[in-house]
């Protein structure tokens, strides 16, 4: 029941996580040995080696930073817009009716369907941002909506009786109640923003971007590069996810358990 984690426990937790990762790397190595075709699959060591070569290039940092800024901007806008839409559509049924078709469209419309329009209207440089945005928006929207609808009616009555201002009701009742679902949307959405954003970069190939690097690795069958850049994408996603979780938990009115 103690909330503080002892240093001993912490090392144990980290050890377990590292063991899990070691297991998967081992499996990867086994697959590599079994396939024995470096064009299809390269070894973990090769990828790490390549990664260490890459990080020495200024291009690596330029591509990475530009991709991060593009994708995270789309992500952030989606989180903000998603929360606003969730509030509007759960509180005013008119907006729900109005936006439901849009939500359906955004969720199901394949990128191929609107890429030309997006390129014309939004511009090729903004397309990755826009596509990350479209990916994250429905996740945040639907999770926050579910969270808002699930807020304890009893506590809302408390807020009403004690004449909480709207701001206070939001901050003290809604935010803490919706937070777990919001957080879940933020973390799932973050991974998806990366996936979609990088894919869009593969299409629009901005001068410096991770997607461009992946595109080149793919068509020139540089499997080592392909794996290394993929690793970069996944690591960045995990890293930023940890940051987002940390930042949101700072705003948390709840206890962190």
């Amino acid at each position, binding site marked *: 029941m103690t909330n503080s984690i002892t240093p001993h426990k912490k090392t144990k937790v980290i050890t377990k996580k590292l063991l899990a990762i070691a297991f998967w790397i081992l499996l990867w190595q086994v697959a590599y040995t079994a396939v024995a075709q470096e064009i299809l699959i390269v070894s973990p060591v090769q990828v790490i080696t390549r990664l260490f070569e890459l990080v020495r290039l200024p291009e690596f940092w330029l591509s990475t930073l530009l991709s991060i800024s593009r994708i995270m901007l789309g992500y952030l806008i989606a989180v903000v817009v998603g929360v606003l839409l969730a509030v509007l559509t759960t509180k005013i049924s008119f907006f729900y009716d109005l936006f439901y078709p849009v939500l359906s469209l955004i969720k199901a419309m394949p990128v191929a369907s609107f890429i030309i329009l997006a390129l014309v209207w939004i511009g090729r440089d903004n397309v990755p941002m826009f596509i990350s945005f479209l990916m994250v928006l429905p996740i945040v929207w639907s999770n926050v909506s579910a969270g808002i609808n699930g807020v304890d009616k*009893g506590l809302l*009555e*408390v807020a009403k*009786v*004690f*004449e909480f201002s709207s701001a206070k009701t939001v901050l*003290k*009742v809604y935010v803490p109640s919706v937070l777990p679902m919001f957080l879940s949307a933020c973390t799932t959405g973050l991974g998806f923003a990366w996936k979609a954003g990088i894919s869009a970069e593969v299409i629009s190939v901005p001068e410096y971007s991770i997607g461009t690097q992946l595109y080149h690795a793919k068509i020139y069958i540089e499997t080592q590069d392909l794996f290394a850049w993929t690793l970069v994408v996944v690591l960045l996603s995990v890293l930023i996810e940890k940051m987002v979780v940390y930042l949101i938990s700072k705003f948390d*009115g709840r*206890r962190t358990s």
Partner: protein
Amino acid sequence: MIKLENLSKSFEDNFVIDNLNVDFLDNSITCVLSASGAGKTTMLRIISGLEKDYLGKVIGAGKVSVTFQEDRLFDWLTALQNIEIVSDSKTAKKLLEQMGLSAQADKYPNQLSGGMRRRISLARSLAVQSDTLILDEPLKGLDVALKQSVYSLILDYSKGKTVIMTTHDVIDAVNIADRILYFSANGFKIEKDIAFEIPPKQRDEKIINKYMEQIME
């Protein structure tokens, strides 16, 4: 004064409250008694402005403060914060002390006993300035010794307010009520309406026993 005029309330065609007319006097504590399920909570919710779908009129409730029948604490706030959310910190700390919970100030609701949670819920409703104080079984789950101190707390914080309180324990009523209303289970009609002459704080054991008998008749 709170006036209920021709108040009726139904759930699915079943009229729980059927044409109720009653006044609750200012600066007085009215204890509401009835069988379980008669309609006490329903009436209190209407007075608190939490039910919209009723017939008749509620007049003069003013600013209302409520102890709900369930505790309705914020799980993510400590005992102290649960009171501070409606009042200033000084009042909150004082009430917590008066409830004998100073040691529990920083505990979360799920780390408290049932009676402790009840006291915090009550303290929250006492912490705010209001015209009307609605207390739905505020003493539920408190032991006898505690009740005595909570009685005087309620009396202290009731000054100048219209207080309506429910309880299932007649002892509570004779200890703090200025008036007792007993409602029927069928249509929530007033069956008994007893006003006590001697103010609660001046009642000794003898008077309390007398009033007890008066009710039990």
